């Protein structure tokens, strides 16, 4: 009897695994294909790119790399460093303060609690395009152009990240834990930083990745606020290559730079996605 059930279970498992692998392989193919095209395109010259699509790489990879690297209007390592600095600051600030805000609203009972929550929920619905124009004018008035402050500080207030943290806390944080910490004499900030944050590791890692990528690829606002060559970020430089004049226009360089620009984000992703998995062990403390 038990043997039979075991067998049935095993067959089910095999079927489930097969289905899972088929779906995963199909989706991975779709994802990898776009990536593959990017790599292929980075091996082709501008003229070759004009003639459309091909599956086979050409021999222009190192020439494109050299051209992109030596382009005097852009400075790739500098751009990457700038982008990295902004993206790292944004992702740390946005996750920390969103978690802090979410914790504040989730754990404490105060008069304006419901108001604060619904307020943030409401403003989350406003498309960013709406405030962009006013924001630019504000920055001009404050003479904060060519400065990273208006690109970094606003990330403290990210309604979407807040909402995620709030939902996450709701599903993982038992109030008993906070109470226990209080009984142990832990201060409120200490509890948050040393008890709650470790539990939230997977959530923090996820949102860090997302905000890092979002900031890394952000073009429009930085393009309007930064014009000093040494402050420019990767997307601005890519746009600059794309709008190069006809005599210097080189799509090969553009694809090469796009490819290079993906590498750092991928490394960050791989590092942080480990933290999502490690989070499981931290989470089990609460049992």
């Amino acid at each position, binding site marked *: 009897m038990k043997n039979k059930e075991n067998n049935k279970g095993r067959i089910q*498992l095999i079927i*489930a*695994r097969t289905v*899972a692998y088929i779906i*995963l392989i199909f*989706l*991975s193919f*779709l*994802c*990898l294909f*776009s*990536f593959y*095209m*990017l790599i292929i395109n980075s091996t082709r010259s501008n003229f070759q790119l004009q003639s*459309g*699509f091909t599956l086979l790489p050409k021999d222009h990879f190192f020439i494109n790399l050299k051209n992109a690297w030596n382009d005097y209007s852009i400075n790739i390592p500098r751009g990457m460093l700038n982008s990295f600095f902004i993206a790292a600051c944004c992702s740390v600030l946005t996750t920390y*303060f969103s978690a*802090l*805000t979410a*914790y*504040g*609203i989730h754990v*404490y*009972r*105060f008069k304006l*609690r419901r108001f*604060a929550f619904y307020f943030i*929920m409401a403003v989350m*619905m*406003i*498309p*960013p*395009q*709406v405030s962009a*124009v*006013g924001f630019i*004018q504000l920055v001009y008035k404050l003479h904060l152009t060519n400065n990273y402050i*208006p690109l970094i*500080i606003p990330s*403290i*207030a990210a309604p979407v990240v807040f*909402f*995620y943290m709030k*939902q*996450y806390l709701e*599903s993982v944080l038992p109030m008993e834990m906070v109470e226990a910490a209080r009984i142990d004499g832990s201060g409120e900030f200490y509890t*948050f930083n040393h008890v709650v944050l470790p539990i939230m590791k997977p*959530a923090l890692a*996820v949102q860090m990745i997302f905000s890092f*990528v979002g900031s890394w690829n952000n*073009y429009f606002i930085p393009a309007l606020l930064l014009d000093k060559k040494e402050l420019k970020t990767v*997307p601005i430089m*890519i746009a600059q290559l794309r709008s190069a004049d006809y005599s210097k226009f080189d799509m090969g360089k553009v694809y090469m730079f796009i490819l290079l620009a*993906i590498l750092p984000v*991928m490394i960050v*992703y791989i590092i942080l*996605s480990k933290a999502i*998995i490690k989070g*499981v062990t931290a*989470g089990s403390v609460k049992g």
Partner: protein
Amino acid sequence: MKTKRGSGVSYAKYGYLFILPFFIVYTFFTLIPQLMTFYYSLFENYRDGLTQIGPNFVGLKNYVTLFSPDNTGSIGILKYFGNTLILWVMGAVPQVVIALLLAVFFTSYRMNLKGQQFFKTVIYMPNLIMAAAFAMLFSTLFSNVGPVKQVLLAHDLIDKSFDFLTMKVPVRVLIALMNFLMWFGNTTILLMAGIQGIDQNMFEAAEIDGANSLQVFFRVTLPLLAPILVYTVITAMIGGLQMFDVPQVLTNGKGTPNRASMTMVMYLNNFLTTSKNYGMAGAVSVVLFLVSTGLSLFVYNSLSSQYKDTAHKRDQI
């Protein structure tokens, strides 16, 4: 949670303290510009070349214009709202369903899939490519002389006049597909983190009780994941209503054909780019804001009450 109300009171000031930085920064950098936008929706305020016209107070005139039939006889904003909904449903429904499925695959100890790290990395990769670059690749693939058309033509599956990038259904499908590819990995990771946060003892207990994987999924995973799932649905909805970059780049901002793939935010953008028409743009924003707030609060309340009910029942059992 209800029982803790009494003990929380003396800590109220920490509540304010914890949320203070958020509100200060938000008010300064975002709320003020937003309020200005809403305020300006009551004004005639745009640029004609370099000449600033207005702001002149015009009451609700911008809203009246917005809801009046345009040159083609239809009410623009309703049409674009409809387009947005269609495009969103086409992309977001598969996105959430597939992501949920993958998240379960990845987190299931019984499945114990090989090569997880590889798959997890690969499915997130499209999100790393900038929307503009992604659309560029798609345009080459599906252009009138692109490989996809050539292959389909060679097998007599389509007519010579078939054009992916200018026909209504193919354009919409491409937009949905691109949105799906760009965001399903993202959603999977979110849900995965949510499942990782669930107490493993719950799964073990369910298995000891003899539950099969479907039962575990519906009785344990789904209810406990509910808060994160609500988040996913709502943000996917907001993201959908604010859909902009993919259709903008793929159709060059035109919403081809016959504006059938023009979304609300693309419409909003039309007012902002050249004429800096803050009056009309403000009016579109207000409408968009009201619609999405209404929808989200509805979804939030109905889903939240549902999962709170089930959670309650589970506690009783």
